[in-house]
């Protein structure tokens, strides 16, 4: 399984031992989220409450979306709108 870097917002540093980007073993968005929780359990309530994942500038909600080391992956607060 490939290692993927997931960028977090820096307010989460206190939950990730100071890291703003975390490398996880993942081939899909879902595996990346699960990997984040496994590495840093403090993230679980925030991820479970709903986050947005942006892959190469594209918002995705699919846990099944394929990702790899070549992708830029950002975790963001859940976006909606009015």
């Amino acid at each position, binding site marked *: 399984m490939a290692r993927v870097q997931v960028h977090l917002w820096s307010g989460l540093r206190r939950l990730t031992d100071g890291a703003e980007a975390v490398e996880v073993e993942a081939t899909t968005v879902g595996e990346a989220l699960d990997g984040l929780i496994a590495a840093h359990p403090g993230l679980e309530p925030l991820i479970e409450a709903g986050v947005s994942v942006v892959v190469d500038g594209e918002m995705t909600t699919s846990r099944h979306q394929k990702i790899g080391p070549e992708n830029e992956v950002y975790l963001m*607060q859940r976006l909606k*709108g009015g």
Partner: protein
Amino acid sequence: MAKDEFKEFKLVGTRPDRPDGLDKVTGRARYGADISAPGMLWGAVVRSPHAHARIVKIDASKALAMDGVKAVVTRADFPTGLTGDAWNLQENTMAGERALYDGHAVAAVAAISKTLAEDAARLVEVEYEILPHVTDVDEAMAEGAPVIREGAADATVPEGMHPNVVKYMEFGRGDIEAGFAEADLVKEHTFKTEAAHQGYIEPHACLGQLGEDGKGEMWVCTQGQWYIRKMCADVLGLDGAQLRVTPSEIGGGFGGKTTIFMEPLPLALSKKTGGRPVKIVMSRSEVLRATGPTASASMDVKIGMKKDGTITAGRAEFRMQGGAFPGAPVDMALYCAFAGYNVPNLEHVGYDVLANRPKCAAYRAPGSPMAAFAVESLVDELCRELGLDPLEVRMKNAVKSGDQASYGPKFGSIGLVETLEATVAHPNLQAELGPNQGRGVAVGYWFNHSGETSVSMAISEDGTAQVSVGTPDIGGSRASIALMTAETLGIPYEDVRVNVVETGALGVNEPTHGSRATFASGKAAVEAARQAIGEMCRRAAKEWGIEPEAVEWVDGAAQPAGPNAGEFPPMTIAEIAGKMGSTGGPISGHHESVPEGVGASFGAHVVDVEVDPETGRTTILRYLVVQDAGRAIHPAYVEGQYQGGAAQGIGWALNEEYIYDDQGRLQNPVFLDYRVPVASDLPMIDTVIVEVPNPGHPYGVRGVGETGITPPLPAIANAIQDAVGVRVRQLPISPPRLLAALKAKG
């Protein structure tokens, strides 16, 4: 400015009559309050007159003794044990141990008439123990502030912060101090915006029926029937599938009808009366006291700029209160704050803070207008001090496709540069200004959104088409979806009817929010139409005895794809549909997904104002909205969205505010005192539709509903500064506030 590749469209980009127009002008359209049922009762809500109070006792005996009063519900009638968002929704629907704001519901009554229900509500005796309150965001997070709710903070809040801080966030990039050191001018100021209500014309209205068997129905004015279903089911402990929710026509929402306020109460009252339908229609006063405005904000912004206009660094610290529950849009505000600028060094800090005010709801680009007010005002101040043209500075720092956004990821295809170019070219920029007149510019941003989407399309026997969507039409989505469906099928616009359907008819749909309906439901409708086209091509192929792959769909008819496929005259959609019963049965298409490919949207506004130095009144002389639509499916509706966003922004900038007395009671809960703009306050708002197609949508749609409310707040503040040399950093810039600023200037 349409791109060449779109010129072949026959319908997309035209302006046919709106499908709901006749119903609306003749009064036939059925809004929430228009729905009635046999045996219906009326509900009325008892609301707290206190900003913060412990509920000692509720005595409904006098109310229940009245002839015609059928039921009273209090929190004791609701299930217990809820957590998280479900608990927040339940607590806001009906107060538990404490009333948390002026207007918080504490009981509800059902009776045989509206008047009787209201009279009975007044007879419900509630004993309160008044508690200290706080309504200002800065005061709410200060040491010693009354605690709204212990333990409400999520895991992001560091230890040591006031319990009213329920969410904290920070993010950034580069070296912020080095960035400021690099600048020729650094400015830092605090900006404040008041809560503003969405101001929809139609108050919340709901008819609900719930039997002892847990089966229920609702007819409700909402932006999202599935959200309403889930929220009501959560609050009342029901199975979602047993609740059938039908959306009414909607008289405006702007985000405020994506959630529940009183909607579970008709169901709760109905259940207590043995299943009689109960209707509640909120008064305007109830709407303003007890439904979501947007948050109020207090914002510190610091920006560094070089003499040539290059922005070297930016820092934003935003504090927002969204009422007595978590949910102020501080995260979105921070994401949008510097979104239009390519700045290497950035720092963002945000606090979501509880206060004794109504639970905020989304309002058009939630958070972005406040962020724009702070950042775009300060950019304007820097431009003025350095003698730079504000539009040139924005162009110099503008983000482009592929740039790293201020909030992290790369931008996809965006059209800020094209938007600024169209702005500079507009003749309004050349209009001469007189004494006490000034011009202001600002840019704004919104992400736009997709979400869970399910659409069905059925071909009728005569070759016309019905599309079932789950996104209520609040801005023209029925017309635009009909246009895209007709364009795809190759049939006239008038041959397509788009219906907004109830929760039993489709899979789960997110509400119409995030400017998503034309993007997401439209994209799904196109996919559904393509599916039906595939089936119609297969049926034609069978008739002709050729392979389906040898059939293509052109101008509403199947035809052989080339000379090798055979010589057959085109078979029209009407011909195929007319035989559907004997060629395989109904022909339909269906698509469900979370459509990907959302396209973000930038806008630029230019406003000319005149200030009356004797009264402080600001008159809008001319107003220009330039915005990237991706592709305007129905340009008249797109222009309407641009104008509507500007109109609401003008109100927020100049007049709208929540005024609380020292007891925390809202002093202006009617439209006479909560002053939204009226026609005489507004000039004709000029619009330019920029079209940088979104590659993620079959017709290039980005979504246009929200960006338009973002730039008006700073654009007007900047124009006022240009007119009279006074910088006002707190909204609204109402006549008294501006007059005081003019007097202080001397």
